[in-house]
């Protein structure tokens, strides 16, 4: 074949280009080719020219060789460029397109940054992907592949975002790409693919899911197992998978069993809960919210309690663990079986032998569960427990009492404990009061400035008690009106406080809230005392306080703002003061609140 000899010649010239044309003179292999070239040259002139060029190269002096080699190379490559084959061997079939009807209209300047962000490494990628999502330019055929591949990205937030937002937006158009990329033996990204495919295709791909659940790599398997929970007919497979070696797979299987909720599934969950897998089983059991299972867990807990009371050594501690599992399972769902749960908890918390230091966390959980039942009988029992002098339950008792008794009785019953100084009981109780007050005032700051507990819920004597005990932050939370003793106490605290003590602002906010007449003057004084030097930025307290000032203080505030060390602070101050000045006079009284709302609006 004449083409073959061209290739041979090409090989030899290429060799000489690498070795150097200086080696060309009399080259053996080229010499060997020459007669055949000459032969072909008789019929085709182009071969004659090649033969001549080869001849010249073979005969060339060292200095001439380079030019000759280049000449031969030029001639040869020109010939070869005309020889490129375009035929194909074998049968071809028309491409069966997936028919993805996506546009390809996104321009280079918008699409290229997205594709770079999806396919390269470096910072700022997620931001770019977000921007493309927000302006919709990612919905393009050319981005689809890169987007689906990004499910494997090592920067987890990108696959998260892509899985959550981008791919679902493609709908069924993403299916062919996800399918072609899916590798059941792959990593986490393939788990995501399986999930996305299932979201699109649903039941029609259950066979693939089942296959993945049996033969897939661990990451894929876990996803597959959790999908199976939606299909009752897969019960036996899930049951089988719940005995897998890998913990993560078992955990996923338990969740799926909880979703299935069949008798066999619940039986298996129960088995898991009473076996070594108890930690894994707790959350699925809670999720299942099955009363039958709850009932069994209660009975299991009761049995465990008996074993705990009668057992010794390792049996005893094992039983304690089992009790703990039972309680964990009931958390959040105890109310649906309040009577049974209560009777179990009562038994548990009345057993002196169980109330030892080793089981403290379980006791704590049991007491919490007791309150969670929100059941009068349980509350009464909690109060009793608290009264029994066991410091650790005093807080629970107090919370139960707060629910069950009038405020005066609660005060009467518990105030005494606080006077006991640093006792454990006092600490417990104070903790309970603090968290209850924090719960009641939660969100108040955002809505309306300084928080205050609801007046009707607490006995008014509490605030006096806190003053006596010198607990300023509780005084702030409990102060309802500008009574002399409250204001005296708080202003006293203010005087002793250091300039940048954050308590100062809590106290000032409380004083404004209870409409203490001197509050504006106190704030002004505090600011003028040099607080401005320490202001690096304005927090909500500063803004709220300044916005609460009467209009008359505007000039003094301006003077203060001029002194502020930082420009950003100064600007913010000025904008608040301007708003203050624009405020109509009659709104002066109520204005603080309106103005605060306005400022918050502006800041958000």
């Amino acid at each position, binding site marked *: 074949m004449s083409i073959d000899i061209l290739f041979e010649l090409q090989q030899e010239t*290429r060799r000489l280009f690498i070795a150097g044309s*200086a080696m060309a003179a009399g080259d053996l292999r080229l010499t060997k080719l020459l007669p055949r070239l000459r032969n072909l040259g008789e019929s085709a002139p182009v071969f004659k020219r090649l033969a001549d060029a080869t001849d010249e190269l073979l005969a060339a002096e060292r200095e001439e060789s380079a030019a000759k080699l280049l000449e031969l190379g030029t001639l040869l*490559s020109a010939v070869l*460029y005309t*020889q490129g084959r375009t035929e194909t061997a074998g049968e*071809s079939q028309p491409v069966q397109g997936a028919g993805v*009807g996506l546009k390809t209209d996104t321009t280079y300047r*918008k*699409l290229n940054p997205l594709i770079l962000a999806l396919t390269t490494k470096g910072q700022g990628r997620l931001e770019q992907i977000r921007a493309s999502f927000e302006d919709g330019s990612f919905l393009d*055929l050319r981005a689809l592949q890169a987007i689906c591949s990004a499910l494997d990205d090592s920067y987890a937030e990108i696959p998260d975002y892509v899985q959550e937002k981008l791919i679902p937006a493609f709908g069924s158009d993403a299916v062919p790409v996800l399918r072609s990329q899916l590798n059941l033996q792959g990593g986490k990204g393939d788990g995501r693919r399986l999930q996305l495919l299932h979201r699109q295709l649903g039941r029609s791909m259950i066979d693939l899911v089942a296959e993945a659940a049996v033969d897939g790599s661990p990451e894929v398997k876990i996803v597959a197992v959790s999908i199976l929970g939606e299909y009752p007919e897969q019960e036996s497979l899930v049951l089988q998978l719940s005995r897998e070696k890998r913990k993560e797979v078992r955990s996923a299987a338990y969740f799926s069993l909880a979703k299935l909720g069949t008798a066999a599934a619940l039986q298996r969950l129960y088995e898991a809960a009473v076996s070594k897998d108890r930690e894994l089983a707790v959350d699925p059991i809670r999720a299942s919210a099955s009363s039958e299972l709850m009932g069994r867990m209660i009975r299991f807990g009761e049995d465990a309690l008996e074993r705990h009371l009668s057992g010794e050594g390792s049996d005893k501690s094992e039983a304690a663990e089992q009790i703990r599992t039972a309680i964990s399972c009931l958390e959040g769902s105890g109310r649906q079986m309040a009577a049974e749960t209560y009777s179990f908890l009562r038994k548990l918390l009345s057993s002196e032998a169980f109330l030892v230091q080793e089981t403290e966390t379980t006791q704590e959980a049991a007491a919490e569960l007791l309150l969670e039942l929100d059941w009068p009988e349980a509350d009464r029992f909690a109060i009793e427990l608290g009264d029994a002098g066991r410091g650790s339950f005093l807080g629970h008792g107090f919370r139960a009492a707060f629910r069950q008794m009038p405020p005066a009785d609660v005060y009467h019953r518990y105030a005494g404990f606080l006077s006991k100084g640093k006792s454990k009981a006092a600490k417990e109780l104070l903790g309970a009061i603090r968290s209850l007050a924090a719960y009641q005032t939660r969100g108040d700051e955002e809505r309306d400035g300084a928080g205050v507990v609801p007046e009707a819920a607490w006995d008014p004597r509490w605030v006096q008690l806190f003053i006596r005990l010198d607990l300023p932050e509780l005084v702030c939370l409990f102060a309802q009106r500008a009574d002399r003793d409250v204001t005296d106490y708080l202003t006293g605290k203010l005087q002793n406080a250091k300039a940048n003590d954050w308590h100062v602002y809590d106290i000032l906010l409380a004083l404004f809230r209870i409409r203490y007449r001197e509050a504006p003057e106190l704030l002004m004084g505090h600011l003028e005392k040099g607080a401005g030097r320490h202001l690096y930025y304005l927090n909500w307290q500063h803004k709220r306080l300044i916005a609460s000032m009467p209009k008359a203080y505007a000039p003094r505030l301006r003077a203060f703002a001029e002194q502020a060390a930082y420009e950003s602070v100064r600007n913010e101050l000025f904008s608040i003061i301007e708003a203050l000045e624009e405020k109509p006079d009659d709104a002066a009284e109520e204005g603080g609140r309106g103005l605060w709302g306005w400022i918050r609006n502006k800041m958000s």
Partner: protein
Amino acid sequence: MPTITEAYVDSLAPNAGAIKNGRDLVKKNSFPQLNETEDGSLLFGECKGSGKEPYRCSVDFANEANPVFRCTCPSRQFPCKHTLGLLYARALGKSFERADIPQDIAEKRDKAEKREEKKKEAAAADNGDAAKAKRKTNKSALVKKIAVQLDGLGMLEKLVLQLTQSGLGSVDKKTLQMVEEQAKQLGNHYIPGAQAGLREFVLTMRAEGDREAVYTSAMEKLLALRALTKKGKSYLEQRAENPDLPMETASTLEEQLGHAWQLAELREYGRVQTDAELVQLAFLSYADEARGEFADTGWWIDLKEGAIRVTRHLRPFRAVRALREEDTFHGVVKAEELFVYPGDLNARVRWEASTFRDPEPADYAKIKALAAPSYPEVVKQAKNVIKNPLADKNPVLLVAFRSIERMGDEYLLRDAQGKPLPVADIGLGGRPTTPMLSLLGDEELRDQAALVMFRHDLEANRLSVQIMSIVTDRRIVRLLY
């Protein structure tokens, strides 16, 4: 005034950042004042900036094809985000109050008009003086320049011979450093094209990876350099002898040596097409390391001539921030004057003033009708080009196809006679396009036209194409950008 769409404003912006910033200004309500004149030819407004005084920006459509952007901001970006924001505000349907044209802009308009008139007068006067008043070239300077160019080519030739003699196998770091040094020196010889060619050789040799493939492409680079020096020398020698000879316009030789064609020169050589209509079929921007610039490349079809034209906007790396980044363009461009550079199958083009319109179904039908029907013909055409050592080795053509087919992992196009054309990814800007083929629908896969780039694989002795776009009766499916 043209209808202002978001896409139109996007296309005016110098880069993606400007698009975002301009839009954000509208989103943040930074335009307290938006006005337009009675005749709608001028949009103007005020935009809040960081300073005390707002920026006053305006867009003047007195000359529709060439709007004038004005703004009082100090930004060097042009058009700045404020004028873009003004246009986005219009595109997004914000209300513009009627107002009289501001004094300063009226004055500027007058001045511009006068300038135009003067220009026209001057042009008319020129035409009066007629053909003789061609640009004068300083002959002695030209001869001197050619001598320097020849000197440079001589240097390059010697280097190429030297490299060939000692062989690519003996090229080491030190040699490459020497070659680079020489390339630097070529910078003084007015042959930047040849200089870039030499740099390409260095970059090829420095490339990581398969040594054998590196040798093959380095050998091709040597052959190309050899062809360039040889042809360049004989051409320049001729011109040195007779400076009155016209410049070479039959091939890309001038450009390959590094000549930057000026529009006036192209006009002089009659390389101007009037009232051309072009549609962009594909776009790609890539970094040309040897030349140190980004090449924003567009492939267009000339609706009249049927030829595939190329636009190439070069943005040197060091000037990237100041230059406009070109973009995909969806409309039909109407250019009064289309300047066509010397070239083979895909001549480079440029235009100064243009208007545009949205493409219609008739345009797509027209494009499809322009597609080459027979592959043997097309292949012959391509081979005829690439066999020339100085030619563009990757010609781009529009071909009709009956079907896109698949054989295992390989794809191919088939024409109406059943002749195949192998499809492969040839590394266009690193963007493979074949994986997208199987996602398309039947409509796109049968009886359409494809814009393809050729590549001859020397090792496998195979000529294949990469599909860049598919033109259907309704749309252009762009597989690149």
